[in-house]
């Protein structure tokens, strides 16, 4: 019974981690069809923001949850204005450009902070599930993921900005005929995606080693989850994270984390084979 409780808790944490690392990528890909190969590095910047802010004496919660999205969102806006906006509609070119940005960011951070692994200590302790100890910080991850997902849903469904966003992504020309400036909307969307990547980096900083190349550890899983989720950002990310998170955690538990990742990959290949457009490409197509 205790074991089942612990396992459930781990599965939830696994799902939440996937949600966090995927959502920013999903926003940018789902809304603008841009494959942001610098997504992992946006997360890395978020993690560095958390580490540096914490080192400078900023409250750990602010350093993890508030500053990373702000800083990385701002970086995203600058990159969109200076690079990405000239490449809309050219998928290959945006991939190359974001790959270049990714390498540039790794190089920049290595030069400034050195190629060493840093860390932030987790701000909360542990608790017991029966005979087992579990990290309270996992609850922080679950809560943040839930908040991010809910926030995105509310933003898209309830706000005028969300309405304009959905309309523009569907038909930018007609949105322009309603007085919307698609250019501005793309800029905001890219900034939002970057901010979400920053948030993921900040929140995951205490449980992962923070180094210039840490993005590589997350990027493949994030891409797999985006593709598995399909066009609906919130529902797709939630569902695909759930499917992959459960498989990954259960197999990791029975075997090793490496086999767990292999299982995730195999599951993703099977899923894409059966549903080439992702889960929400076939089911729940009207969802957000």
């Amino acid at each position, binding site marked *: 019974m205790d074991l089942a409780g612990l396992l459930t808790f781990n599965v939830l944490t696994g799902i939440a981690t996937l949600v966090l690392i995927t959502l920013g990528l999903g926003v940018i890909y789902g809304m603008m069809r841009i494959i942001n190969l610098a997504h992992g590095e946006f997360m890395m910047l978020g993690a560095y923001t958390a580490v540096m802010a914490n080192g400078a004496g900023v409250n750990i919660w602010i350093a993890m949850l508030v500053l990373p999205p702000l800083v990385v969102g701002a970086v995203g806006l600058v990159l969109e204005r200076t690079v990405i906006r000239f490449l809309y509609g050219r998928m290959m070119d945006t991939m190359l450009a974001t790959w270049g940005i990714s390498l540039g960011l790794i190089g920049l951070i290595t030069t400034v902070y050195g190629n060493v692994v840093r860390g932030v200590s987790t701000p909360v302790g542990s608790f017991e599930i029966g005979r087992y100890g579990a990290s309270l910080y996992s609850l922080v991850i679950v809560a943040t993921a839930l908040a991010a997902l809910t926030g995105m849903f509310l933003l898209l469904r309830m706000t005028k900005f969300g309405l304009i966003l959905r309309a523009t992504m569907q038909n930018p020309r*007609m949105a322009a005929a309603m*007085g919307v400036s698609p250019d501005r909307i793309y800029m905001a969307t890219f900034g939002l995606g970057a901010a979400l990547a920053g948030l993921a980096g900040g929140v995951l900083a205490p449980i992962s080693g923070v180094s210039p190349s840490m993005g590589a550890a997350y990027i493949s899983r994030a891409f797999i989850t985006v593709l598995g989720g399909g066009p609906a950002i919130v529902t797709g990310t939630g569902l695909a994270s759930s499917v992959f998170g459960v498989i990954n955690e259960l197999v990791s538990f029975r075997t090793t984390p490496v086999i767990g990742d292999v299982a995730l990959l195999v599951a993703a290949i099977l899923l894409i084979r059966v549903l080439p457009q992702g889960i929400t490409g076939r089911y729940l197509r009207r969802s957000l």
Partner: protein
Amino acid sequence: MSRPMNAIDPLPLTSGSTAVATAARPALLSVEGLHSGYGRIPILGGVSLTVGEGEFVGILGHNGMGKTTLLRTLMGYLPVTAGRIRLGGEDIARRSPTARARLGMGFVPQGREIFATLSVRENLRMGCLLSDRDEDETIADSLAVFPRLKAYLDRPGGALSGGEQQLLALARCLCGNPRILLLDEPTEGIQPSIIEEIIETLQAIGRARGLTILLVEQNLTFIAGLSERVLILQKGVVTREIPPEIARDRAMIEEFVGME
């Protein structure tokens, strides 16, 4: 004209009292020597026309004569390679579609381009972005004009029939209270009952709101039912103007166009 004509009878002539001479009204839209095209392929070779404040002008032409290109260029989706477009005296030839929409150009494109996954209400809310009035009031007014849409408010726009989508596209555009309405072949693929409904609706609100309409069409019934003046577009230029007294009668337009 060789193309098959619409099956429904021409509408009865409305009394000639509204046929005011163009010169009497100030020009809202004036186009001079407009050249445009796709990439290096020229389509428009110097279109000049004027639409007066409150006037309904129709442009008649076969497929491939540049009707859609003209409206897309007026809306700013295609670059002007030469010539001028003035809206209310302001030169807008270099402005973005967004800026033109904000200046009062309303566009109902060919194929309607409803936001398919957005609900009918959300489509209308998008139309309200340009209106400074209260959103709910504007939508309520719009539903009074297009009562057929009331039943579908929470359905996705893409689930509507072609005719209903056309009504929605019109309603969406009118929510923004445009100064001029650019209509691109609103009758394409639409059941005749809705064509008549559209004519009646546009005439009614056109009068009530002092709306100006520039319409491109190849459906004679529709163009005769709505336009005060009809221009003929051939191979990218306006070749002739059909006088108002003829423009209101489908049969007479047919005869006029036929006597090359």
